């Protein structure tokens, strides 16, 4: 485990009282989230595990409905009324957030984990000036006086490249790109440990998208931000993230360093996903389409959820849930193509140890 | 037809439900599963019985000459709701009042809905300057308060026509109320129908092929109308609630017909006889409770219908 004390040392605000200073930033283990619907319970997230260290950027990718947003929102238990965490642990600085009540988890919202939502037009209060919206958590959550909160809001706007005078603007007076920047400024207001970006560039055109990504990269560098970036756009993850986690139908398909996963994808779904993205540099070729549709999560198929659409599916795939295996290079895959006997046995989500010989079966 | 191409044989005795019958059953099921639909319907059924068979239930409508009781007696001695200042049995008056109040409400609703739907469909479908003009006119009517317009129009019309004139056996005063309610309520219906027509119009361009060659009247009748019928029905029920409410108010003010005692008219008599100040609660409670129940019931049913039939209402329940 690497704890970057240098980054932790730069925190402006004290750690949570229950925090273990030597614990890793974030460890999510076996997280399961369900939604109660009138005709059944949707198993939106099923046994997802991952981790995040100080200063890291993790990208969560997958099709619409694969559970990436739900996973991120459930870190601070920000689910709609019919959603609930069925099981698992979310350990922030060693503190398990899952058993916390609504009142208790409020402490961690925005101050430790903040979110930049997509479509900032609707995510900002239309009748409130953006300066006030940015200053609000500083004043209310951090207990700072109003004047200094407002001043800080102006500074944050400058930090994201918006002129300070715009604190008095309303959301509809800003362009789409500026609104997204304002959302980022707002997310930084309480100097959080983790910022989650939920499709932060999806609604923007490509040029603005590039600017936002550059901004995020700069902030990461300068402020030592730890980032979770949720998107269906793999090129965004390729540019900005250190590691990537590919999700399918509520489960983790593959996870590892971006370079490794993208250059040599192991899971059939990852391979399909990568080949369905056009590459500007290589020759034109037909885009591959993944036939079929993601499964209905009220009644997911037994075994591997990708099996019905998988070109390499074997009989065992539709019967047994593929266990997660970890490769020597740190990449985790859940696929029967990679039996556990071939790989080392570190528990899921842990940092890669030195490469070993063939070991015990993964848990 | 060879057996190979014949449709799969149904087991004997099992009927196949046709599409529209199946949808109707679905609708009824959804409606009854809502508590507001259930209670509303129950209350309306009760009052429908009262309105349809008053003579069977309480005998003929008592008048000043046929009244048998003492003046302003509290309940007791054979009079379930006591008597009014003329000695009439209030139970008798109240039950007959159901028919009168509801009849007026019904006729007013018919006028409102017909006029409102007509304007709404035409304005929405034809669009352009016709639409603008119609909407400006309807805006004007929306702004005018019903009561005030009624108070102005009623005496004018009565003076022109004469208070005892009759049309189809209905006295002029009643006609005035019906017309006035219709005049002031059609605008809301028109607006609601119009927005629905606008969204239907969008969809219709997909069905262009079907409607090419048909005249606008035909299109409006055969394509637009079926798609807004649901909304019209829901609006009609809600309008009925308003109509009964308004009729009661107008009758209370004195624009009603003393010989046809709707609930509002009864309350008018009660006020005139000083019932509240005298504490004659038995005179006030029956018609008041009836009005509230009926208006409430129509509102509940109308809301239920609106939620089920109108896609845009969304899952607001």
């Amino acid at each position: 485990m690497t704890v970057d004390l240098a980054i932790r040392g730069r925190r402006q605000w004290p750690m949570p009282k229950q925090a273990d200073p030597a614990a890793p930033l974030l460890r999510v283990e076996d997280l399961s989230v369900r939604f109660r619907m009138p005709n059944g319970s949707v198993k939106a997230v099923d046994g997802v595990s991952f981790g995040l260290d100080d200063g890291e950027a993790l990208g969560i990718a997958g099709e619409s409905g694969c559970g990436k947003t739900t996973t991120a929102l459930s870190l601070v238990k920000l689910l709609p009324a019919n959603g609930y965490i069925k099981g698992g642990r979310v350990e922030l600085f060693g503190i398990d957030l899952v058993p916390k009540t609504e009142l208790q988890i409020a402490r961690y919202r925005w101050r430790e984990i903040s979110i930049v939502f997509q479509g900032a037009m609707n995510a900002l209060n239309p009748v409130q000036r953006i300066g006030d919206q940015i200053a609000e958590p500083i004043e209310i959550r951090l207990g700072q006086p109003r004047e200094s909160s407002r001043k800080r809001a102006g500074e944050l706007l400058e930090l994201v490249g918006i002129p300070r005078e715009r604190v008095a603007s309303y959301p509809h007076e800003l362009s789409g790109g500026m609104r997204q920047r304002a959302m980022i400024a707002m997310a930084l207001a309480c100097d959080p440990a983790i910022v989650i970006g939920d499709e932060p560039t999806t609604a923007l055109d490509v040029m603005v998208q590039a600017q936002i990504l550059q901004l995020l990269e700069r902030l990461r560098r300068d402020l030592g931000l730890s980032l979770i970036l949720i998107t269906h756009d793999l090129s965004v993850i390729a540019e900005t993230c250190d590691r990537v986690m590919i999700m399918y139908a509520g489960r983790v398909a593959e996870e590892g360093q971006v370079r490794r996963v993208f250059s040599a994808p192991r899971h059939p779904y990852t391979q399909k996903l990568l080949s369905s993205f056009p590459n500007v540099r290589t020759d034109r070729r037909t885009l591959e389409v993944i036939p079929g549709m993601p499964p209905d999560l009220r009644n997911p198929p037994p075994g591997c959820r990708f099996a019905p659409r998988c070109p390499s599916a074997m009989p065992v795939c539709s019967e047994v849930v593929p266990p997660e295996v970890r490769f020597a290079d740190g990449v985790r895959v859940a696929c029967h193509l990679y039996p556990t006997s071939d790989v080392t046995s570190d528990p899921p989500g842990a940092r890669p140890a030195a490469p070993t010989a063939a070991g015990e079966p993964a848990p | 037809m060879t057996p190979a191409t014949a449709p799969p044989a149904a087991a004997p005795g099992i009927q196949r439900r046709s599409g529209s019958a199946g949808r109707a059953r679905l609708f009824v099921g959804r409606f009854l599963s809502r508590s507001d639909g259930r209670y509303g319907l129950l209350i309306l059924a009760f009052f429908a019985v009262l309105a349809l068979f008053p003579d069977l239930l309480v005998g003929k409508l008592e008048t000043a000459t046929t009244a048998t009781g003492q003046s302003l007696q509290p309940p007791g001695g054979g009079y379930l709701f006591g008597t009014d200042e003329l000695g009439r049995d209030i139970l008798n008056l109240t039950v007959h009042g159901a028919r009168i109040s509801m009849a007026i409400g019904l006729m007013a609703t018919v006028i409102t809905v017909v006029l409102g739907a007509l304007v709404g469909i035409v304005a929405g479908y034809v669009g352009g300057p016709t639409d603008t003009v119609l909407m400006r006119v309807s805006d004007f009517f929306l702004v005018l308060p019903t009561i005030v317009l009624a108070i102005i129009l009623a005496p004018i019309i009565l003076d022109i026509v004469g208070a005892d004139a009759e049309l189809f056996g209905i006295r002029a005063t009643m006609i005035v109320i019906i017309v006035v309610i219709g005049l002031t309520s059609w605008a809301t219906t028109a607006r609601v129908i119009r927005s629905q027509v606008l969204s239907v119009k969008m969809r219709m361009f997909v069905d262009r092929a079907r409607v090419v060659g048909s005249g606008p009247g035909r299109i409006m009748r055969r394509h637009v109308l079926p798609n807004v019928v649901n909304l019209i029905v829901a609006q009609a029920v809600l309008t009925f609630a308003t109509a009964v409410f308004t009729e009661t108010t107008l009758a209370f003010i004195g624009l009603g017909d003393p010989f046809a005692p709707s609930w509002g008219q009864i309350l008018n008599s009660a006020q005139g006889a000083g019932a509240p100040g005298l504490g004659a609660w038995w005179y006030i409670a029956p018609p008041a409770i009836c009005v509230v129940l009926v208006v409430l019931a129509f509102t509940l049913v109308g809301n239920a219908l609106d939620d089920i039939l109108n896609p845009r209402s969304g899952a607001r329940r």
Partner: protein
Amino acid sequence: MNAHYLARKLAQAFVTIVAILVLNFLMFRMMPGSPDRVLKNPNLTPEMIAATRARWGLDKPLIPDQLIAYVKATVSGDLGYSIFYRGQPVTDVLGATVGPTILLVGLGEVFAIIGGLAIGAYAGWRRGGKTDSIGTGASLILYSMPYFVIGMPLVVIFAAGLGWFPTSGMTTPGMSDQPLLNQAWDLGRHLVLPLLAVTLGLLGGYSILMRSSIIDTRNEDYITTARAKGLKDSWVLRHHAFPNAMLPMVTLIAINLGYVVAGAITAEIVFNWPGLGTLTIHALSARDYPVLQGIFLLVAVSVVIANLIADIVYGFLDPRVRA
């Protein structure tokens, strides 16, 4: 406040008022034998009649001369003379009764808005909970009750029955000689029940509408953002949901104002409150057309002005509209 928006709204209001004047004029002339019948008022001297005929241009063609004369007369405050009130100018008659109505209706609106918006907001925010069931149920019932259906039982129970309040009127006779404090107390005692009736009569509708509005607002993304900021639920309701949910209410409240003044007529009848409502009833039974015309004009124009004010207020509250 954007000048263009303001100008547009003022122009619309103006057009509507003109339309009302024309409508009033036509109705006036529609009756058989009028306006001569109106001027057959036995309380008017022949000189007054002649002067009025000249001012109203009754010897000239109907349109445009009579119309213009009518508009001029109206705008300069000449609304004719009351039949019932023995030749008093209509403006005087109206002036004497407007005060009590505004007192009753104005206060009633204020309380109903405060109460209705609060109940509706809490009911809608905790949708499906007990607050919602009780609040919405009570609101639906109140919404189905005309003012007098609320008022009459109030009189029976609290005035005739318990004797806590007077059964009718605005003041006790002979009060005007008493010290001001006593007068105020007397007015207050008379005000309670009618005010309660008007407030309850309005509250139901506002509560139901506000509940809808809050439920719609609750689904917006910025509410999720506010929750994500770790703000308390009540804070989110008060500072994010409520200001946005209020916007459609402003328009609805304004539209309602016209109905309120009119509907309060029935409340005034029940309590014998000496306002416009009671005046309307007397004028109605006496067929005092000038007064009725005057009331119509007053109410209709008030509604237009109320709508205009609402539009202006809306412009202040919703920054998107000002652009």
